């Protein structure tokens, strides 16, 4: 482990890789600041650039973008009350009121310190938790992997929003369906290619990620007419001091510590991610606060800002645990990273720790560097970086479209891919209008191939019997968790429906009586 750590450290401190962290953090901060474009879009836009790099540098750049995007999202939440991504929505609850009180500088500094502490604690826990879990998972067999994939896919549904469970499951199945397009790797038989040579290799992950996230977000912005809105006016001179007093630090320190550990644990759960961590930690902190403190939440409470900020960064780090050790992405963002790693020829999972210790450790160590870069470089530069927010939308939108399209085109040099992107964007926009979540689809698409391979192996070994699902205690345990993850939200949903129906009946009864009397 020590050798691996040293090799990771050597890779991470290489000047080129340090430069990648810095570039990643800056690019991520800028993209994350733009309302609607979150870490997923930011990483998707960066993937084509990373194709020319070696895997370690590529993944280091993406990790930097990830952190930067979350930090950038917080900045726009605080300054203009427009969260760049879902995980920073809660930041606006108390961050924006602070900015309105001419304390934007303090809010930004607190967000940066909380993010730094959350990320640091997360990275330290990851440093010890990931290798331990990776060692355990080395004994996994194909049936265990299949069960893990099922758990990863069902967990997404379990953590999806209210009324979104079935939609998340449908999107997961949709992603798995898209993954079946192209030549079947095991038999060599073409599936769903409709005699089109462009579909023989299937649909590219990058194309799907760009079309469903970057392009669809831009299209939704235009569709809603948000491009016509005036650019936010920010008074950079009224940011106020960026210093926190000793009392304030003492006041928020326990919150940051609690939320960091809590955020990390939530991030480790497959499917949960930074958004849920930030909401839960905010709720937790509000419940723990005294009556007077509670009243301040939503009006510029420092604890209300520190809690989600430390939790979302710690959760971002935590979501790397299932990705690096089990090969299962814990969130939509890590799903994109999984796709990128597979494109590099690296299969994340327990073997990553053994086969590519440089990648494994350099990612973990560079995460820490990313936090330092955000604190030392990004924070003082925030007043200047946020000026980029005032680039007129009519100029910015075609540029984002161009980078998305070119990113895909420069990998394949096939204009069919651009046409395919347009078709997928239309479908994804339609699905978004119907409130279908996109991340489960991407997760299904990425895990589809591995799931099919492991199912095939397991079924072949058990001669077509599904007994492999309960013969090994480990497989059975994971499957029980998967079933629980699937059933719990279903039960909750049915319970709520029943309660709603009861409430509706209670209010309709007098009306019925009236009808009868008529």
């Amino acid at each position, binding site marked *: 482990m020590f050798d691996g750590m040293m090799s990771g450290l050597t890779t991470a401190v290489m000047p080129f890789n340090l430069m990648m962290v810095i570039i990643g953090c800056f690019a991520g901060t800028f993209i994350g600041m733009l309302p609607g474009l979150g870490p997923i879009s930011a990483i998707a836009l960066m993937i084509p650039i990373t194709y020319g790099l070696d895997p370690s540098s590529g993944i280091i750049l993406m990790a930097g973008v990830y952190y930067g995007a979350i930090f950038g999202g917080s900045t726009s939440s605080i300054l203009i009350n427009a969260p760049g991504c879902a995980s920073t929505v809660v930041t606006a609850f108390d961050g924006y009121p602070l900015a309105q009180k001419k304390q934007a500088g303090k809010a930004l500094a607190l967000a940066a310190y909380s993010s730094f502490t959350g990320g640091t604690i997360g990275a330290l826990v990851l440093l010890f938790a990931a290798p331990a879990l990776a060692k355990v998972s080395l004994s996994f067999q194909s049936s265990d992997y299949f069960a893990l994939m099922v758990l990863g896919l069902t967990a997404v549904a379990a953590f999806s929003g209210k009324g979104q469970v*079935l939609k998340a499951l449908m999107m997961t199945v949709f992603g798995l369906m898209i993954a*079946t397009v192209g030549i079947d790797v095991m038999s060599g*038989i073409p*599936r769903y290619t409709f005699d089109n040579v462009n579909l023989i290799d299937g649909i590219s992950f990058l194309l799907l990620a760009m079309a469903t996230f970057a392009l669809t977000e831009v299209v939704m912005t235009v569709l809603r007419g948000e491009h016509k809105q005036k650019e936010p006016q920010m008074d950079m001179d009224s940011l106020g001091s960026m210093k926190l007093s000793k009392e304030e630090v003492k006041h928020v320190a326990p919150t940051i510590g609690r939320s960091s550990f809590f955020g990390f644990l939530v991030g480790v759960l497959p499917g949960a991610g930074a958004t849920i961590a930030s909401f839960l930690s905010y709720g937790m902190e509000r419940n723990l606060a005294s009556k007077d403190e509670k009243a301040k939440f939503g009006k510029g409470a420092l604890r209300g800002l520190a809690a989600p900020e430390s939790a979302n960064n710690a959760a971002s780090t935590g979501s790397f645990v299932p990705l690096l050790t089990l090969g299962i992405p814990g969130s939509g963002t890590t799903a994109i990273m999984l796709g990128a790693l597979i494109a590099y020829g690296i299969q994340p999972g327990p073997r990553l720790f053994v086969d590519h210790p440089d990648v494994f450790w350099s990612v973990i160590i560079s995460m820490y560097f990313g936090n330092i870069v955000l604190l030392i470089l990004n924070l003082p530069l925030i007043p200047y970086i946020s000026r980029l927010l005032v680039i007129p939308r009519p100029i910015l939108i075609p540029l984002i479209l161009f980078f998305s399209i070119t990113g895909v085109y420069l990998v394949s040099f096939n204009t069919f891919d651009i046409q395919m992107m*347009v078709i997928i964007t239309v479908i994804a926009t339609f699905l978004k209008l*119907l409130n279908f979540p996109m991340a489960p689809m991407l997760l299904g698409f990425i895990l589809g191939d591995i799931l099919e391979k492991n199912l095939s192996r397991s079924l072949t070994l058990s001669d077509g019997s599904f007994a492999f699902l309960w013969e090994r205690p480990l497989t059975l345990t994971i499957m029980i968790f998967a079933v629980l993850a699937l059933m719990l939200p279903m039960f909750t949903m049915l319970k709520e429906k029943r309660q709603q129906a009861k409430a509706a009946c209670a209010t309709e009864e007098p009306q019925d009586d009236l009808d009868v009397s008529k």
Partner: protein
Amino acid sequence: MTVTKDHIGGLVFLCFSVVYGYYANQITLFPGDEYEPFHAKYLPLSLAILGILFSVCQLVTASKSSKDRLSLTGYDFVLVAKLLVLMVLFAISLEWLGFMVSTALFLSGGYWLLGERRPKILFLASVPFAVGFWFVLTQLLEIYLAPGRFFMTFIGS
């Protein structure tokens, strides 16, 4: 009956799953493959069944609240359609006019569609950008970009 987003989504996905299942059945297997515990049709057929199952569940449990009705008012579909057409035209022009010219045309077209009318901005935000980006790709990163069939045919380079 109120038709909500849930109903539309469920119905569309049901139709899609049925069509997907139909084509899963059309996948040709190698002789004898059908007796194997796992073959190329296995996962697609299972997914089609799952898709049908989930979409039926969605239809049954769909929200009936009028709040969840699909409202398309206030959306600028015409502008989005124009942008999507511009993207398709960009794909076509990449083959015919090459990267640099297509990029400049795409960007200025995009700015124009989104309401930018100042010729100076239209020119400065597209042409220098296209030339600069082309230079970085071809000269610094040494990526070969075909000059476009039009130039190849009529100009010969």
